[in-house]
């Protein structure tokens, strides 16, 4: 149902935007007149001051006029001077020789084939492509008398280097993180997987931003149907701008109204490489270090890359701890409200009396108290993120302490509630991915509300509804709750616990259908017993 709605939406977006963007006439090609071409570019770009036009004269005694156009700041100026201007204006010997040998040959072709000492170079006649190249940082060479141009790729701009990712931090594991440049990001993945089957399909999405998007997968491991589906969904996007992978995530996800993410994202090349090896598909978007991975399953959001770098025993225990804290983050305030307002009989007498003592004189019902504290915490958290970093963390700690302690001292909030809310908050930070923590953050309030009106009964109904919802979700055709529902015994090796590496001999079953075996000889790595 929801899926069809979404498709219809997409189509309407496509049709409306195609009307808007159809600005240039279809016969948009270069003319043979240099001045006309330059004038046309100037008028289209609105005299933008960062576009540099350089007119030079080349050839024997400067008989031919030529134009060089590039975008200042996106082009590598030293290479422009050393390899383009120098070739055209000084080292013209080669050109002259060739022109004498082949007088019929196009000057543009001669320049391209014999003169230019640069890597990527293209002949271009289409005006739109030429503009796109220019604005992406390519250098354009126009020559009077030719309706062709040379487009030289010497892009270079200042960018953030490969730094340690700030999300999904680990104690043990690689420290490098993706950066904003899609090429750097693909290189980081290639450096990890040197397999010819690691394929990369590039797309340009966004009518105006023309954002480079790369789809990466390992051919032969990734499910072809899912690859096709990913390409289909990406090709269906018709939008003016893609600024972050989150834009794409929202446009291609399966369940737009579910609080649970059906697309995984990561800043870490090792996580993406591992996902590719499992048969998943990565979507890299230029301009953001966050790479999308599909299909994303519920369990995946509880797995940290460190699980696989640490010993299996501690990794399993830590993973169980994550599920436990997920439950706390989801249910703790709701359970507290339900038990203290409906099911007092469940508490040991000493605890009941102690809680009752804290509530003496408390002005608000427990539910209201919980909501106040949770909202206070959300405010603190949001403020902590948005504040300038230098005061952010200190302010959030002090804020929490002052608000919490002062509220208790003033008798507005009971101390137990502060404890519950604090535990909840800490638990919600345990999950290794931010996305699942967000889902829990929202659902928590719903659970508190049903706990306040229906007690444990309500919580039970809510949990049943939640599980039904989770089981109904799919991510690119793969059931979201697999390998729990549908249950798969072999995939339990990496679900709640992680078995030792030598036991993990197959890839996840539902993601990968064609190439299951991860390692041969999967028995153990135990040393052989000494022979007597």
């Amino acid at each position, binding site marked *: 149902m929801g899926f069809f709605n979404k498709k219809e939406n997409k189509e309407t977006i496509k049709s409306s935007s195609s009307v808007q963007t159809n600005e240039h006439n279809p016969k948009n090609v270069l003319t043979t007149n240099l001045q006309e071409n330059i004038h046309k570019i100037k008028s289209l770009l609105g005299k933008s001051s960062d576009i540099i036009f350089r007119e030079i004269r080349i050839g024997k005694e400067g008989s031919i006029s030529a134009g060089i156009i590039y975008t200042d700041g996106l082009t590598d100026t030293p290479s422009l001077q050393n390899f383009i201007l120098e070739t055209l204006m000084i080292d013209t010997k080669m050109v002259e020789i060739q022109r004498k040998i082949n007088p019929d040959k196009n000057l543009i072709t001669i320049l391209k084939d014999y003169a230019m000492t640069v890597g990527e170079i293209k002949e271009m006649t289409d005006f739109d492509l030429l503009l796109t190249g220019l604005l992406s940082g390519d250098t354009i060479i126009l020559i009077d008398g030719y309706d062709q141009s040379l487009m030289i790729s010497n892009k270079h701009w200042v960018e953030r280097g490969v730094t340690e990712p700030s999300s999904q931090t680990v104690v043990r594991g690689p420290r490098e993180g993706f950066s904003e440049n899609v090429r750097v990001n693909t290189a980081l993945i290639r450096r990890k997987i040197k397999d010819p089957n690691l394929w990369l399909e590039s797309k340009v999405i966004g009518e105006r931003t023309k954002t480079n998007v790369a789809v990466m997968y390992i051919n032969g491991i990734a499910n072809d149907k899912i690859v096709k589906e990913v390409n289909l969904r990406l090709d269906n996007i018709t939008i003016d701008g893609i600024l972050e992978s989150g834009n794409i995530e929202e446009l291609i996800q399966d369940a737009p109204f579910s609080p649970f993410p059906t697309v995984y994202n990561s800043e870490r090349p090792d996580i993406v490489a591992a996902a590719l090896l499992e048969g998943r598909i990565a979507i890299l978007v230029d301009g953001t270090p966050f790479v999308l991975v599909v299909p994303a399953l519920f369990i995946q959001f509880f797995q940290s890359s460190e699980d696989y770098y640490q010993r299996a025993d501690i990794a399993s225990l830590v993973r169980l701890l994550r599920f436990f804290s997920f439950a706390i983050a989801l249910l703790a305030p709701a359970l507290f409200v*339900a038990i*203290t*307002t*409906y*099911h*007092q*009989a469940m508490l040991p*007498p000493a605890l*009941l*009396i*102690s*809680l*009752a*003592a*804290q*509530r*003496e*004189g*408390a002005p608000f*019902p*427990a539910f209201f108290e919980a909501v106040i504290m949770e909202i206070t915490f959300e405010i603190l958290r949001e403020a902590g993120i948005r504040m300038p970093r230098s005061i952010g963390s200190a302010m959030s700690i002090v804020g929490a302490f002052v608000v919490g302690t002062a509220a208790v001292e003033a008798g507005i909030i009971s101390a137990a509630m502060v404890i519950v809310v604090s535990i909840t908050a800490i638990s919600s930070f345990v999950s290794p991915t931010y996305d699942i923590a967000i889902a829990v953050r929202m659902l928590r309030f719903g659970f508190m509300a049903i706990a*306040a*009106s*229906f*007690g*444990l*009964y*309500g919580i039970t*109904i809510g949990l049943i509804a939640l599980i039904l919802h989770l089981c109904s979700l799919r991510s690119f055709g793969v059931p979201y709750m697999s390998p729990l529902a549908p249950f798969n015994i072999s995939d339990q090796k990496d679900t709640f616990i992680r078995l030792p590496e030598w036991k993990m001999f197959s890839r996840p079953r539902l993601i990968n259908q064609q190439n299951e075996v991860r390692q041969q000889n999967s028995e153990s790595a135990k040393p052989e017993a000494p022979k007597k």
Partner: protein
Amino acid sequence: MKRCTFVLLILCLLLTGCWDRRELNEISITLAMAIDKVEDEYQLTVQVVVPSEVSMKTGTGRSTVTLFQAKGETVYEALRKMTVDSPRKIYPGHLQMLVLGEELAREGISESLELLSRDWEIRSDFFVAVARGVTAAEILNVSTTLENIPANKMFNTLKTSEGAWSATNGISLNELITDLVSDGKEAVLTGIFITGDQEIGSSKQNAESITPAARIQYDHLAIFKKDKLVGWLTESESRGYNGITDSVKTTVGPISCPNGGKATIEVIKFKTNVKGKINNGNPEVDIEIKVNGNVGEVQCHIDLTKQESIDELAKIYEDELRKNINQTIETAQKKYKTDIFGFGNAIHRSNPREWKKIKDQWDEKFSDLNVNIKIDVKLQRMGTLDNSFLEKMKD
């Protein structure tokens, strides 16, 4: 159709649930309850915790509990009538002690327990005791030390003494009702009484002095016939009763040494098996007791390094235990003619057909019942000494 089902399912969720929402500061947590009979009416007294006084932080030094009292023709009536006095509704979900007045107990307790076993809010795992010499309400009116909530002190004292001394028996409401409805066992309840000055007992000073003027203590067992109290066992009979009904966890038993002087056996394991049988048409009961113990204290001259002397002590303990149990059974058989041990149940279990025939005249049959006792005492350890240092002092 689908929509209709959906709406129905939603209504299922909305039209039910827990309707009894109340905040913790809207309930009076009742830990002890007393029922007396005053002039044909039930007088119900509840001991309610004052939470702010229990808390270390907010306590102002006032009493940690308070009493509310009401009279009514039924217990429930009295319980609800209490709200004319109490600002919060009585919440008996955590009831730990129920004290019944002696007068009520002599008239019959079963009617007064009906509410407590019926009400969904009340758990049935609290202890029941009978006030001896005073009204049940007076028992709740004593402040206590160490445990600053008197109900907790009563509950914990009973639990500790039943485990370590075994002259009392913590009977929960469930067990009491099982005994009341059973044909082959009569009920028994622990007695509770006040020593010292009751006037001061209810005041805060009582708990403030090192030696409280009034204390709540447990007494021996009260024995019932049907639901009426008929008499009290002595201390040693109470211990005998616990021995027969397999309620001894650990205890100590003083014995006389063969050459004069005293010694104490510490019982660490006490297991009783009661088997009923019909012998030539006459009911008979076999009691088999297995005791594991230690030599706990030796105040006499005996050579503990010899196995024979240990065996001798075991033999003496066995004899004393047998005497004690015989005495207890005789009291029940001859004096009160009430089967508090559940021998009837033992016969019922072994021979249901015969039991049906004799159960109507069980009280008479019980009085003449032949009881065979088999006791096996094993003494295992003797602490950190072998021979007592008293031996050396003699030299």
